[in-house]
């Protein structure tokens, strides 16, 4: 009986003991698997997992033909682990199995030779903090150099990718493309269209062996990187280069401070070229002064002067108040309605003249325009210029775009309400003026100017920016009549020998506007421009060239050669066929 009881007791003790052990195990298990789980996983991961950033590639900026203007490129940072640097150097294993002793200074010298870095700086970086595990040796080297450094097989040299931006066409469209600083986009399309261009970085992890070797097949993408989209500009890179070259040559020949040249396709308002002088090379941010890093054609409104006159005349023709042949009495001075002592004069002295409206345009008579303004109320005149887009920024919405100044007749003196009809006392950007010529060339239909053609996402979806509504500013017949008057500038104006192109009908207008100095009074500086349409009978392109403060020639004759050169190039680039009908001959005097 006793033995039976004993064995029962033993059995129950064993069961209890086993159960107790089980409980301890379960507690431990819960502790490890649940309570400390995340901590331990982290600890384990830290020992065997490596996390790397994968970079989403920033999208390209291309021209309308796909020519790459801004490109994301691979660069590499050469890094090192000073902790692993041995002062005695290291043994390099050669291909044949032998080893060569490479001293520390030799290794530094080899890196310096390949990368062009300063050996002394490399040595300082490596020896300054011997306990450190990471220093940069050379930043942003190209693949060829990187491969050579890798081939040195220096044990303490590592690397990391360094995505960078390159502008293969240099200053071609540099004013429009913009540039990127170390912390992100800083100017132009790069900044304005960042939401389309920017990619998002991702991360992935892989396991390593105890000696740091990556285990194949262990890579896990924790967050996928997405590439940015491609921005297609409306410009033609070759024409853009040509326009920049022609503009710069003329600007230098005339000693101009700055200049702009714009080519707009009248049918759809696409900007085919928008040159700036000086023009930044986005690869070298110090290539121009800091005030010339953008596009002046958008950012710098100026008093455009006489190239505004076709807009004023178009308003009058559209209301049926005048035609090209309406006679205008043009006295030597215009004083009507102006404060006592004030007067408006022409660029050339004259007595009483009899001009037609076409003659007013051809002679670019300020007095003629002032006389014509009497036919229309101040409000209507103002509304007409507003309809052509003056006083509000263009639909391009370029970074830092100016809207110019157009004075409401209620808020300004009586002189300005007259002078702004011929482009003084108001201001406009080259883009606004180009937009006005686009409307005249497109039978009165003003199409929003476009610089950004589309954004193509990495997946292939294409989106087009919403550019705004098309408006009929004046009737097609008005636009045609004004163009014919402007043809008289080409055929009979004082620059006819410079701006006419054999075989082609072009409608042109010149502008020589005085520049107000800091005190607000007009000095001896001018902003000169020539704008026009080709071919005049059925316009396809509008061209405007502006030069600021030329030294050698103080009239629009300074800008005319560049205007003609660019227009001839437009003919070649876009295969514009010669005109088949002769330019009309409208009487300019009566």
């Amino acid at each position, binding site marked *: 009986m006793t033995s039976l009881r004993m064995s029962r007791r033993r059995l129950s003790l064993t069961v209890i003991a086993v159960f107790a052990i089980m409980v301890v195990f379960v507690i431990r298990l819960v502790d490890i698997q649940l309570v400390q789980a995340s901590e331990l996983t982290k600890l384990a991961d830290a020992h065997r997992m490596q996390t790397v950033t994968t970079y989403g590639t920033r999208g390209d900026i291309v021209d309308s033909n796909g020519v790459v203007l801004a490109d994301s490129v691979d660069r590499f940072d050469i890094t090192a682990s000073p902790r692993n640097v041995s002062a005695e150097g290291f043994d390099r294993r050669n291909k044949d199995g032998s080893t060569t002793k490479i001293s520390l200074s030799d290794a530094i010298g080899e890196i310096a030779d390949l990368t062009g870095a300063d050996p002394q700086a490399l040595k300082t970086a490596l020896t300054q903090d011997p306990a450190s595990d990471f220093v940069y040796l050379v930043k942003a080297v190209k693949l060829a150099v990187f491969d050579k450094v890798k081939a040195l097989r220096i044990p303490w040299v590592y690397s990391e990718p360094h995505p960078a931006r390159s502008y293969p066409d240099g200053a071609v469209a540099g004013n429009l493309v913009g540039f990127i600083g170390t912390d992100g986009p800083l100017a132009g399309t790069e900044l304005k269209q960042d939401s389309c261009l920017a990619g998002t970085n991702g991360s992935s992890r892989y396991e390593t062996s105890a000696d740091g070797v990556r285990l194949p097949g262990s890579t896990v993408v924790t967050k996928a990187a997405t590439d940015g989209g491609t921005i297609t500009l409306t410009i033609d890179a070759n024409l853009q280069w040509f326009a920049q070259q022609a503009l710069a*040559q003329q600007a230098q020949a005339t000693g101009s401070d700055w200049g702009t040249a714009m080519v707009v396709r009248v049918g759809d308002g696409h900007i085919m070229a928008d040159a700036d002088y000086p023009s930044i090379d986005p690869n*070298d941010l110090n290539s121009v002064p800091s005030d010339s890093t953008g596009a002046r054609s958008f950012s710098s409104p100026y008093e455009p002067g006489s190239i505004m006159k076709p807009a004023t005349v178009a308003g009058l023709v559209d209301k049926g108040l005048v035609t090209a042949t309406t006679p205008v009495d043009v006295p030597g001075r215009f004083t009507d309605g102006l404060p006592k002592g004030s007067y408006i004069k022409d660029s050339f002295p004259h007595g009483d003249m009899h001009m037609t409206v076409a003659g007013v345009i051809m002679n670019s008579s300020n007095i003629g325009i002032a006389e014509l303004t009497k036919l229309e109320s101040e409000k209507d005149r103002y509304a007409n210029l507003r309809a052509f887009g003056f006083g509000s920024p263009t639909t391009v919405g370029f970074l830092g775009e100016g809207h110019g100044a157009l004075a409401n007749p209620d808020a300004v003196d009586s002189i300005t309400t007259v002078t702004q009809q011929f482009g003084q006392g108001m201001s406009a950007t080259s883009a606004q003026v180009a937009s006005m010529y686009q409307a005249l060339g497109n039978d009165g239909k003003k199409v929003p100017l476009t610089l950004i053609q589309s954004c193509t996402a990495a997946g292939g979806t294409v989106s087009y920016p919403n550019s705004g509504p098309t408006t009929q500013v004046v009737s097609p017949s008005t636009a045609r009549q004004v163009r014919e008057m402007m043809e008289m500038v080409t055929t009979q104006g004082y620059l006819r020998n410079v701006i006419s192109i054999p075989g082609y009908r072009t409608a042109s207008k010149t502008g020589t506007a005085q520049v107000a100095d800091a005190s607000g009074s007009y000095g001896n500086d001018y902003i000169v421009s020539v704008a026009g349409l080709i071919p005049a009978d059925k316009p396809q392109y509008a061209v405007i060239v502006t030069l600021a403060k030329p030294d050698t020639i103080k009239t629009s004759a300074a800008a005319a050669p560049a205007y003609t050169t660019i227009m001839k190039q437009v003919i070649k680039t876009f295969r514009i066929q010669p005109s088949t009908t002769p330019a009309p001959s409208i009487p300019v005097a009566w």
Partner: protein
Amino acid sequence: MTALAATTARPLRQPVEAPRRHLEVAPSRAQRRARPRLLPALVTIGGIGVILLVQLLLSIVLADGAYQISGLQSAKHDAVLQQHALSEQLDLLASPQHLAANAEALGMVASGSALYLDAKTGAVTGTGTAAGGSLLGAGDQVGNVLLGGTALVTVKASGTGMTTSTTDSTGGTQAPTDTGTGGTGQAPQTPGLLPSPTTH
């Protein structure tokens, strides 16, 4: 007889035990069938052994394949980087500045205005003008710092071979070096003439 007597009165003698016969339980048919058999055991163990071996070999092959995949992936990555670097170089060489400089180095000039031939009527429209001369004139005004040190193609005066010379950033030209791309055709008589095929 008392109970005690009855107890004590038993004769004290050894009980004679009859010699026991060895008995064995005859297995039933089911038991016989349940008895382990050698052959299936050997087959099973052998099978497990084979499976383990195959598994080992398979994992060796797989690991080998994984390294191969990894190697190829890294080779692909390198190739992609190489492609990026080359297309970057190509974009640079295709830049208008470089093309214009090359064209002028080869003696090319801008064309004059174009004439148009109407295929229906045979009429020619347009006004022909002389060639436009040098585009670069006073030099390239449209900067590109990336082009510094990029080779320009020039024509070797004594033959049809194209040579390249390196232009440094100041625009100076270093001595040309023959790249060995010269054709085997006749040398043009006029120095500086472009090599071109003879057509009829």
